[in-house]
């Protein structure tokens, strides 16, 4: 047998053995740091609570809401059809199938928007596109959708339109009934003519 072939065989065996020591953890494709910074400074990743409410009400099939809070917080309260991927489990292989689905927009939310924004930065670095952050998080959701405030009388028309939308959304998400108490019926005061006393005169 040729000596060269012998050395080649040994080399192949050594390389094959080396594969046993390879890191079995999934390696993620990562975008370049310059590209990540460019994307970070764009404000286009933020969606408002009103936009998210609209997506849910319209049953937008491309929406994927991701709650990055803990499992306990998610169990206590979560948005309609949201899935729970706790922030610390973002890199877990169990959840990777939820990301990067073509035609799907992933909207992260948390109590406010910091944790969701950090989840966005990490998934963006992993090269996942079409991810968004619900600005203000659930705190803002409560203040705008669940407990909307009526605009002042001199507010522009658009503010009233937005308020009407939020009232509708409030009913949709909480099952609240129409609040009729706002339109108060004016009490009709019936004044009966006083009967003349006997002393006041008579027939």
């Amino acid at each position, binding site marked *: 047998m040729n000596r060269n072939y012998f050395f080649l065989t040994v080399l192949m065996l050594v390389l094959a053995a080396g594969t046993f020591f390879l890191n079995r953890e999934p390696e993620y494709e990562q975008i370049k740091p310059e590209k990540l910074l460019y994307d970070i400074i764009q404000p286009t990743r933020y969606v408002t609570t009103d936009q998210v409410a609209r997506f849910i009400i319209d049953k937008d099939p491309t929406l994927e809401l991701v709650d990055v809070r803990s499992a306990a917080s998610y169990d206590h309260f979560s948005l309609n059809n949201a899935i729970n991927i706790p922030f610390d489990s973002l890199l877990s292989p169990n959840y990777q199938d939820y990301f990067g689905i073509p035609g799907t927009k992933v909207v992260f939310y948390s109590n406010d*928007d910091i944790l969701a924004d950090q989840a966005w930065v990490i998934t963006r670095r992993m090269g996942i596109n079409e991810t968004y952050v619900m600005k203000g998080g659930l705190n803002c959701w409560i203040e705008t959708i669940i407990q909307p405030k009526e605009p002042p009388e001199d507010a522009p028309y658009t503010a009233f339109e937005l308020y009407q939308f939020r009232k509708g959304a409030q009913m949709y998400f909480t099952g609240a009934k129409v609040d009729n108490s706002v339109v108060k019926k004016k009490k009709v005061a019936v004044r009966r003519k006083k009967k003349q006393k006997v002393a006041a005169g008579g027939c």
Partner: protein
Amino acid sequence: MHVHELNPRKTLVTVIIFVLIIIVGFLTLKKPRFKYKLSLEQTVELAHDYEAGFHPFELADVLGKKTNNVVFIDIRDRFSYGQGHIPGAENISAYDLSEPKNIKHLKELQDKEMTVVLYGNDQLQANGPWMWFRQVGFDNVKILLGGYEYYAAHKDALEQTVEDISYLRGEPRYDFAEVAKSVGSVDNTQKVANKKPVVVRRKKKPKVASGGC
């Protein structure tokens, strides 16, 4: 019998040329400007790094010149910076952060072991840039908790913000489930509350004394 066995000299020349091409390729390879120094796992842990936040009450020492190893970088645009900023803060707009001269300046600050504190209008604005700097190796970069808005509202009493926790982010301000539940049922209870009991008032019989025809 293979060709290289027939002409070993020719084979050697080919191998040398091949190796030279590889070496030239490596030497002329453009070095990337930035490299991730933190792995993705380390970046996830960064969210729990409470030392990375710069509290507003710590500002009092810096402004009072008690410490001089902190540099503030205002990442808002020039217009916002001109309207008001933390005294002594440098303005590097978020869009210019990766400019070579700015990166050089930040590296110099890192070499001098200076702490760099980034801030935007609110904490969210500086959150992404802060994470980015930490990921590419600037471990001296911190973020101003509460952002400029909180500073501007409390600049006259920064020391007193030690007890304040309203600027800390990440906490729920409501019991979400409870609020949603109460709103869902509030109108029904209102209806009950608003319904006044009907009082039947019978017409009083006129007394004999009240007279009449």
